[in-house]
């Protein structure tokens, strides 16, 4: 306790003399830009000096920069703990509560990174099908999908090679629900771009009527697709949460109290709607984040 207090004091002293801005970063994608802008806006609105490093780069670059102390806070997904700590096969990541507890503990102990409260949303891999198909064949869940495929229903799924091959993706769906897609029922696209797979399904390219997607993808509804519910929990849970360096949180302990209510309001439907405003309507991520915060969390 005394040691912690001393470290806090020593850590805070030089900073008080010349306040270092809090470096806020995000990954380069749509949701990274959205969540990063929210963190940036909330901290700035409460008088914390911030430095904008949003849309910095892909996951490996952002993570490496955070571990090197170049980034103070950024939004990350709980399920990536498997990737970061080489525990991809561990079933802990399939549980929202236990997965969060695990990555929070590992990162706190090994990297002095603190995971704040995650959003009640899951940006995991999902399978989305055309709305007309879903309505006609009563497809709402992955169990329905398995029944349809096993009953000889016509389906062609567009997916990335990673989704098809990674044991935690399509093979996990197939094992949990007891179905198997043949090569003829798959269209494998290079790269992991869900915009491309969703577009293929929406436009029926090469007979595709289902697509790999992410749960919070804004484009699913806009393209006339519907995401099937993972009713047996086959997939790893990817709940977005702010990750902050312990030293920075000690310096600004109020950050947790400021961001927790914001992330608590980010449900799956909310994230889909906000991501769609950016990806489908082409609005700027900064103004989408600012408008949302103004409507839900007015500044003090």
């Amino acid at each position, binding site marked *: 306790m005394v040691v912690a207090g001393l470290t806090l004091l020593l850590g805070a002293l030089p900073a008080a003399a010349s306040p270092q801005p809090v470096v806020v970063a995000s990954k380069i994608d749509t949701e990274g830009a959205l969540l990063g802008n929210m963190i940036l806006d909330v901290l700035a609105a409460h008088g914390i000096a911030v430095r904008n490093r949003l849309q910095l780069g892909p996951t490996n*670059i952002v993570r*490496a920069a955070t571990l090197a102390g170049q980034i103070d806070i950024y939004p990350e997904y709980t399920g990536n703990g498997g990737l970061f700590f080489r525990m991809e096969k561990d079933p802990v990541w399939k549980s929202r509560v236990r997965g969060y507890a695990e990555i929070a503990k590992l990162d706190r102990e090994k990297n002095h990174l603190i995971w704040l409260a995650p959003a009640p949303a899951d940006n995991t891999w999902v399978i989305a099908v055309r709305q007309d198909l879903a309505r006609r064949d009563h497809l709402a869940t992955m169990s329905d999908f398995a029944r349809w495929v096993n009953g000889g229903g016509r389906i062609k799924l567009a997916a990335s090679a990673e989704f098809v091959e990674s044991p935690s993706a399509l093979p996990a769906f197939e094992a949990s629900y007891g179905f198997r897609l043949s090569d003829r029922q798959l269209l494998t696209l290079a790269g992991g771009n869900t*915009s491309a797979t969703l577009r293929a399904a929406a436009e029926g390219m090469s007979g595709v009527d289902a697509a790999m997607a992410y749960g919070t993808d804004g484009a699913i509804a806009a393209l006339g697709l519907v995401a099937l519910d993972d009713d047996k929990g086959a997939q790893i849970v990817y709940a977005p949460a702010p990750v902050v360096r312990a030293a920075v949180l000690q310096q600004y302990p109020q950050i947790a109290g400021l961001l927790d209510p914001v992330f608590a309001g980010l449900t799956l439907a909310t994230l889909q709607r906000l991501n769609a405003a950016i990806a489908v309507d082409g609005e700027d991520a900064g103004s989408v984040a600012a408008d949302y915060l103004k409507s839900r969390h007015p500044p003090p």
Partner: protein
Amino acid sequence: MTLPADPATRRPALGLPAGVGNPVLLVLVIVAAAAAAASGFVALAPNRLVSGRPIGLLSAAGAAPTIAVAALGALLLAAALLPPRKPLHAAAAGLAALLLLSTLAAAGDAASTIAAAAGPAARVSLGAAFWAIAACAALAIVDQMQRLRAGPALRLLTVLAIAGGFAALALAGTFDQLAIAREYATRHQLFAEALGRHVALVAGSLGPALALGFPLGIAAVRVPRLQGPLFAVLNTLQTVPSIALFGLLIVPLSALAAALPGLAALGVGGIGPAPAIVALVLYALLPIVRNTAAGLAGIDRAVIEAARGMGLTQRQIFYRVELPLASPVLLAGLRIVIVQTIGLAVVAALIGAGGLGTFVFEGLGQYALDLVLLGALPAIFLALGADFLLQTVAALLPFRARR
């Protein structure tokens, strides 16, 4: 931008009748006309994620712009069939420039008309026919300028005239409803910043690259033993993927910034411009060193012997004989390096250095191709512009490159 040398005196090619004056122009007109007839001039999509439905030139732009484009095409066809003469080349270059600008104007007008009738999320993007006509018009201008044997001044004037026409159309709001302009409108502040940052990244890496590469190139010629290992290292560097290089640079640069707070205050760190500039410098070294070495090694030994015989010192020989004689090759190397660095700087967005790559990668992630173009097109024009300027400088040098 360089077509085969001096086509003016060449015999008609492609098995065309001997009376055909300019087969290159003829082919360009035919390609443009075929594209206009067969593919969409613009494409209308209900939102920016789905593919657009192609709309032909006539139904997109209306009668008057279509007739204008067709008439200019017909005049260029006539110019292609007439026997070549200097005034004809000048007229054809002017016609092609007019065709380029009226195609741009027609696309902008078409987008305004179509967008007014569609919903707010609808996007009008440029179609295959537009790109084909614009590219053929641009190539026709280049071809006619070469046949005219236009000097640097005339080339510069032509480029400025076309750029001026484009700027006038843009300022008048002609392009405002095109999808790429809509992407620009939501990001106009970021765009200026990204463009400035891109230029700064290129300029910031060229300085150190020249300061390092030029002496290394000289050393490679003076000490032949050095050549093998030096080029082995530089060739290897060139093959390292940029994203891997960025990843490798984060840790040492972060440590450097932590050890020397003065450097950190200057903005040096594991992310941002520092790793991007280090990577761009490393990639630029190979062409600079290679061209410096090739330029100096290519000088006739007899010239240097003569200079020595006249009593010039080693230093005088370098500055008065070797450097001027090698300068065309050195400038050619500089052109390669600048164009390469402008292109590679796009990747710098992946390490938080900003620049035009920000739009390219954001657009790739969203599959919003117009956003990709908003990053890619300015990068292409920066590269072409820089190349053109250096070409003009090279043309004004007293020593021309030997063909």
